[in-house]
């Protein structure tokens, strides 16, 4: 195994992770809700009165991120995302993520952050499952083709 030292960012990734943990903890402690993007979107797709407004407020905050980041983060801190996938691949991937996350009742936030933090066995199995196929998929993409 060989480490990509050029792209490796343990410090900012750990700090970013801590922010994710704070947001997830405070949303649960304050509002009693699990911070799972899949679950939040699900509730927007099938809206119920009394249940929709916190979801919209949270998503608007999420969408405001790039604008606020421009103000508060030092210039050049955020580099442009590297998107290698072709258009067809992006569509296929989006469909699989959409179906898969609802089928598996969660994604990297709900299972990966909140679930593991709650020491949920279900979320541990989910996280190992999507990481497992993630590893295999990138291996096939980058090393077999």
């Amino acid at each position, binding site marked *: 195994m*060989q480490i990509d030292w050029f792209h*490796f960012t*343990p410090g*900012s*990734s*750990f*700090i*970013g*992770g*801590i*922010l*994710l*943990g704070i947001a*997830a903890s*405070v*949303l*649960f*402690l*304050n509002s*009693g809700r*699990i911070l799972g993007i*899949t679950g939040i979107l699900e509730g927007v*797709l099938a809206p119920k009165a009394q249940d929709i407004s*916190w979801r919209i407020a949270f998503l608007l*905050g*999420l*969408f405001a991120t790039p604008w606020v980041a421009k103000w508060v983060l030092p210039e050049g801190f*955020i*580099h442009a*995302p590297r998107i290698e996938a072709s258009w067809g691949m992006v*569509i296929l*991937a*989006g*469909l699989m*993520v*959409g*179906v*898969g*996350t609802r*089928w*598996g*009742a969660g*994604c990297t*936030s709900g299972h*990966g*952050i909140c679930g*593991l*933090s*709650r020491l*949920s066995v*279900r979320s541990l199995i*989910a996280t190992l*499952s999507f990481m497992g*196929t993630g*590893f*295999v*998929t*990138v291996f096939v*993409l*980058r090393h077999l083709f």
Partner: protein
Amino acid sequence: MQRVVEFLLGLLFGMGLLISGMTDPGKVQGFLDLAGAWDPSLAFVMGGGVVVGVLGFGVAKTKSRSFSGNPFHWPEMTQVDRPLVLGSLMFGVGWGLAGFCPGPALVAMASGHDKAVVFVIAMMVGMVLFGRFKKRDN
């Protein structure tokens, strides 16, 4: 007031995704590429998130209500079942193919990256399609 708190938490979560590097598919795929030049950064993201989360959810376990007065919506399912595993396996394939999971894709969409916009549309279509199939099953 609660809506303002939730807006700020969405923003904080988004900043976490941006700062950690999760909104860069190249970084995600770099983590998933064990056989190539491996970028272990994502393990630090998850580590940071879970270290804080264990504390936060640990405090919640000692309380009967959230600060807003609303009850805690603890996830009710505890059983490891086929949908959980099959769905997660499928999600992982999509995650590896494009390097996007739902949260970072939404932030990248808001940044105006065209492929992220298309990814999110496809993802929403997938979510709606799944809802249709599920309804037919019941």
